[in-house]
């Protein structure tokens, strides 16, 4: 009995040992270390705001694509050398266009993109209001009193127990 318990304990210890490295979370593919916490903050902001152009629904922080790796490296090098956030953004936009930014800049060309949904919402709300108005008005589109009497008579005919 003792031997069996020892065996079970050893097996479970071994299993735990094997599981340990697997449970370590792999947060980054490469390590980009900063001495300056401000620079690190800018770097983290940038890789969250820049789009990976290969997997176009991911930002640079999340993407595993080779180009994302290169662009993260480029961003890191620039920030480490002392570039400002706007410098890196300008660098990327010069090469890849506005699409590289997750937040499209406010330009004349992007006015429709930014304000279009609100305009559509306003139009549909106005349209809805007018529709409701016209319906409530249509309700009172009067019947003549003669028609009302006739309607009452017909209704009371089907219900002999109810007095008109």
């Amino acid at each position: 009995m003792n031997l069996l318990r020892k065996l079970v304990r050893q097996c479970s210890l071994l299993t735990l040992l094997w599981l340990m490295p697997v449970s370590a979370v792999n947060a980054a593919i490469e390590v980009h270390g900063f001495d300056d916490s401000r620079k690190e903050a800018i770097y983290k902001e940038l890789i969250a705001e820049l789009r990976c152009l290969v997997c176009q629904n991911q930002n640079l922080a999340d993407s595993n694509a080779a180009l994302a790796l290169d662009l993260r490296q480029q961003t890191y090098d620039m920030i480490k050398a002392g570039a400002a956030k706007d410098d890196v953004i300008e660098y990327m936009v010069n090469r890849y266009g506005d699409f590289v930014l997750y937040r499209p800049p406010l330009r004349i060309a992007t006015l429709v993109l930014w304000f279009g949904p609100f305009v559509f919402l306003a139009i549909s709300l106005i349209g809805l209001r007018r529709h409701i108005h016209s319906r409530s008005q249509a309700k009172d589109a009067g019947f003549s009193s003669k028609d009302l009497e006739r309607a009452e008579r017909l209704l009371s005919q089907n219900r002999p127990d109810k007095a008109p």
Partner: protein
Amino acid sequence: MKARFLIPVGIFIALAILLGVGLTLDPREIPSPFIEKSAPAFELPRLHDSSVNLTPEDMKGQVWLLNVWASWCAACRAEHPVITALADTGEVNIVGLNYKDEPPDAIRWLQQFGDPYLASISDLEGKVGIDYGVYGVPETFLIDQQGVIRYKHIGPISYEAMNDKILPMIRELKARSS
């Protein structure tokens, strides 16, 4: 009263046109901000002779194509006959930008499938690719005699694209300067 009922039809037709046009577009294509701008400068070693460098200045005075390729790129293999056909017309010189590749692999690839390029240059780390806004392989840039990028083709060039778009543009650019 009658005109009001045409409004939904009108909205439908407008929407159908809008969506119909949308069907012909590829949302994954990113337009290049370099069209009608000077080709970004670079200086890279030639693939077959790394002691010699090539710059865009060396190509001034002629209409040329910069074709981004790599030996690990399957689509480049598919595009290769078209690039060869383009080179065979004799109307344009093609410089290959060997992107993030191993020079021995690249040389072997060219030996195996044929070398249509005037020269290939090695962009080992992809830095020049980033400078040109390359986000996939293959991509091809059409550059004129003054070093201005006139057209970027994303993805492999088809025979259609070659005959309907690229060759006509090359001929037009040549005619313009002469």
